[in-house]
């Protein structure tokens, strides 16, 4: 479904502080299942996920989604793809300050023009599921680390995306919550959704729900094992 062909990403190309974050990564990701990207800090996990999620373009190589070439699609179409296919959980959450938790979660759905009440109910249900029902009307800057992470997860799920991309979704969660989140992700996977996560948490990549583990090192793919 998603295929990467010799994808490279170089930051600050040609400058002294050039950084090769990804080097010729080739990869096929099937529909459904949980795929975990693991690897030491700075190995390019986040970079790879942003490329797959159409948030950035590769320096070289091709990325296709259902056979459609994404890498040189104009920005307008990328937005379209982002909106309808992907849900993204950022490593630093990237919640919008000044808004409440509920507003942050509802944000991706605003441009779709769904009825407001329906949207709000959906968002509240998601928050309840993550144990954040009581925080729905708090401003996001008051949240604890784990609460913010769960809010980011809820935001990624509000549009019911076909592919969920979560960058270290359990970094700020305790073991109990991590397991819960994993259970939820497993549920999504069995519903036929594709879940891509990056993690360095043994709890994650030793979990039963995980279908495939891809290992990165220094921007290169060094391992690919199915469980």
């Amino acid at each position, binding site marked *: 479904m998603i295929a990467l062909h010799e994808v490279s990403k170089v930051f600050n190309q040609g400058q002294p502080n050039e950084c090769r974050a990804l080097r010729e990564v080739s990869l096929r990701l099937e529909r459904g299942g949980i795929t975990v990207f693991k690897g030491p800090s700075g190995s390019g996990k986040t970079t790879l996920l942003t490329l797959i999620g159409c948030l950035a373009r590769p320096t070289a190589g091709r990325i296709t989604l259902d056979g459609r070439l994404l890498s040189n699609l104009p920005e307008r179409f990328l937005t379209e793809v982002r909106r309808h296919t992907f849900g*993204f959980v950022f490593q630093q959450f990237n919640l919008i300050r000044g808004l409440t938790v509920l507003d942050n979660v509802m*944000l991706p759905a605003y441009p779709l023009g769904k009825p407001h009440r329906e949207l709000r109910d959906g968002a509240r249900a998601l928050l309840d599921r993550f144990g954040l029902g009581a925080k729905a009307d708090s401003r996001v800057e008051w949240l604890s680390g784990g609460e913010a992470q769960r809010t980011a997860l809820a935001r990624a799920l509000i549009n019911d995306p076909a592919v969920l991309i979560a960058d270290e979704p359990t970094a700020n969660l305790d073991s109990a919550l991590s397991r819960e989140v994993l259970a939820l992700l497993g549920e999504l996977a069995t519903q036929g959704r594709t879940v891509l996560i990056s993690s360095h948490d043994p709890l994650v990549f030793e979990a039963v729900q995980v279908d495939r583990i891809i290992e990165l090192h220094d921007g290169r793919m060094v391992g690919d094992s199915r469980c």
Partner: protein
Amino acid sequence: MLLLSQGLRREATLLLQDAPEVVVQKLIAGRHDPLPAAWLDTLRRIRGVSSARGRLWGYYYDPAIKANYTLMVAPERGLAADEIVVGAALARIRQIGVGDYLSLRAADGRPLSLHIVGVLDSASELLGADLLLLSETGFRQLFQLPPEVYTDAVLTVRNPREASTVAGKIALALPASRPILRAEILRTYDAVFHWREGMVFVALGSLLLAFLILAWDKAAGLSAEEKREIGILKAIGWETGDILRMKLWEGTLLSLTAFLVGYLLAWWQVFHGGARLFAPVLKGWAVLYPDFRLTPAVDLQQILVLLAVTVLPYIVATLIPGWRAAIIDPDAAMRG
């Protein structure tokens, strides 16, 4: 400030439309001086001049309302020596109307009682509001003006395109004269009415400049925070169009509110406060020609023009950087 100027500018343009082609003043030591009637003959003899007519007009300070009237002799109205026609605002403020008598103090100190035979249309413009039309005899009586002088002379020129040549000839024939071409009239505010507008114009210009700087500053300084927000919005699936729509609403709401507040303040200030804020500044010539209380004139077109010069640039100013930020990669914006 804007309101004031807006009104006066419109006047000036209207005025210009039926302004004479050449106005001749007499200068003495660089100052405007009554023009001897003999000059009219000299002017008529200049080749290219088809007619020359002496005009009489001036200002009268009324201590009762601490304001200046603009007095003009209107020969075409055929007024008798003691008959006058007054502007609407003047009539309202002095609470007089057709049939009443208005008493003015002549230049020799004697009171002069004048019979009001008409009130100018209330829809007539700002400058007409303080107008007082009277007969030549009345004017000369009031100001103790000798019969052989005029305020200035208006010429009609056979070929309007030769007006400047004619002006040159006049300056030669009458060294103490100053011919003013129609094109110059708008610039010499003193010519027919107050030169107040020039000042207002500068102030208006400065304010507009300041406003533009402000908008530009607001716009250019799209903060890192805002850029990040836009990046996040794009990343979670918002289109450039959605973001712009949001910014547009934001900008419109903000500037409309600001505009309404400003407009109401200005309105209150100019018409009810009697421009008290600017009073110290206006005092400068208020001693010469104390200011007149302006008539409240809220007209739609004026508001639209004001809107166009204030709200629109602001909205555009907020949109452009938003657009610039919205089209960049979400990744770059989020990290930047």
